[in-house]
């Protein structure tokens, strides 16, 4: 309460924060390079591919080289072409899921934080059930109701993640609402909508953005898992998950078919996780430099 060492002065913390900020920037750069390279691959695939997706002229399971950078699969399709398409699907899956999770999750979370009594309880119970509900089962239900497309997979992943995001958002908003500066805003005549936009969101978004970056990595993995099981984008769209599944039988004789999507998957997930870590350290307001 009264003048403890923890309260003052602000300086000692800043030095540690500055150190964290430098490390954060380095992590951020490495993460951006990794994830950026794959995003670039995905972008290029929209305009140009080495071979058409259904071109089977290359001969079966040729090794890397000779016109096919990574070789071909068991049907004679170019692996590098598939990997490029796969990267596009991975990025789309990540972005799509995170977008759904962010919009639904943050809205639900803010509502739950403001709700009181039974409404808060109901919303929280609903979120808990949604979190406990297996993504796989949700995906199967959605695929059954619609069809096995990338959209179905993304919807399933996004919905499952929105519950996680909502619960996080609810806690973050509640914590901010308990601060005196919110009461100060009210006694200053600031309306609730303006308080949410001006005080609540700015104070929760750094944590939220970091979490969404992590969710992006998880969504990419989940999409790979679903399409491995045949619940993702249908052929001829080569997603990494399906490439892994198709290369499984011939892994010992032609490992390139599994290694290429596998390695890229790992690199993309590590990349976005590094971005998340970097953001965590650089978004701290106390490290932002003064305007000079």
């Amino acid at each position: 309460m009264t003048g403890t060492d923890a309260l003052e002065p602000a300086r000692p913390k800043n030095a540690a924060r500055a150190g964290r900020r430098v490390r954060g920037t380095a992590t951020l750069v490495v993460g951006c390079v990794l994830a950026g390279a794959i995003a670039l691959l995905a972008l290029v695939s929209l305009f140009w591919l080495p071979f058409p997706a259904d071109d089977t002229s290359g001969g079966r399971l040729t090794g890397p080289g000779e016109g096919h950078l990574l070789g071909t699969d068991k049907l004679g399709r170019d692996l590098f072409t598939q990997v490029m398409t796969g990267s596009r699907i991975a990025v789309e899956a990540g972005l799509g899921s995170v977008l759904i999770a962010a919009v639904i999750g943050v809205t639900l979370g803010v509502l739950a934080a403001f709700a009181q009594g039974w409404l808060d309880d109901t919303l929280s119970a609903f979120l808990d059930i949604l979190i406990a509900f297996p993504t796989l089962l949700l995906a199967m239900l959605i695929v059954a109701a619609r069809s096995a497309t990338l959209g179905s997979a993304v919807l399933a992943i996004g919905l499952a993640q929105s519950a996680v995001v909502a619960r996080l958002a609810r806690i973050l908003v509640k914590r901010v609402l308990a601060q005196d500066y919110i009461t100060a805003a009210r006694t200053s005549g600031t309306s609730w909508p303006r308080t949410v936009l001006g005080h609540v969101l700015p104070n929760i978004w750094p944590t939220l953005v970091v979490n969404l970056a992590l969710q992006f990595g998880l969504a990419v993995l989940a999409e790979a898992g679903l399409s491995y099981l045949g619940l993702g984008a249908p052929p001829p769209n080569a997603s990494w998950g399906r490439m892994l599944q198709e290369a499984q039988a011939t892994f010992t004789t032609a490992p390139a078919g599994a290694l290429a999507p596998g390695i890229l998957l790992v690199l993309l997930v590590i990349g976005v996780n590094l971005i998340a870590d970097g953001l965590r350290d650089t978004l701290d307001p106390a490290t932002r430099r003064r305007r000079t």
Partner: protein
Amino acid sequence: MTPVLELKDVALRHRGSAANTVEDVSLAVEAGHSLALVGESGAGKTTLLRLLLGLSRPTAGAVRFDGAELSPGDRAQMRRFRRSVQCVFQDPYSSLDPRRRVAAVVAEPLRSLGIDTRAGAAPKVAAALERVGLPADAADRYPHEFSGGQRQRIAIARATVCGPRVLLADEPVSALDVTTRVKVVDLLAELQREQGLTLVMVSHDLSVVASLCERTAVLERGRIVEQGDTAQVLGEPAHPYTRRLIESVPRLPV
């Protein structure tokens, strides 16, 4: 003369609680005067402060502003009320939004009450910061760059920027070091004197109460046990609880 702020036979019972948190409380502050609400934890100080700030409504009795009952539905009255009654909080670490520059923090009442545009607010913000003894370049910085005492000055600048008539202060110096405490008490006394501010202070610190307030109400378990001139209440306490409070204050050896 009509009091600026008045509680008349006020009681408040929190949802799910068996007993009233505060009960049968009547007090009034007249313009330009000062009142202290004294009590220990659980006495209902914070509840009374929230009632006086129009943040909660009494279960019984009335909160009056300029003689009229405060009704949250009356937007014109609430606007006048917010403009006239501002607040300084106990913890200067929690009361300033860490993601806003000091200029935006201090300008908030002006902007939210629609008194000024961003550009129009700037000179008033500068004046308010100067009044509380902060350098002009403070406006461009973030709260974390300031010490506890300086942060409390920023909070006081925010509370006085729109020229309110009443300042409510919730333990305004109890989170500060003793040396800083004296300076902030001096600042509040100066604002009282020069701006003619009405001060309502909630505190458990009797020496701060004695330094700043003309009248004192002593609260024990949600009820006012003694009320009157500070000199009277602290000098010749009538109630045993008040006496015990005074005797408990640790004194320096003579």
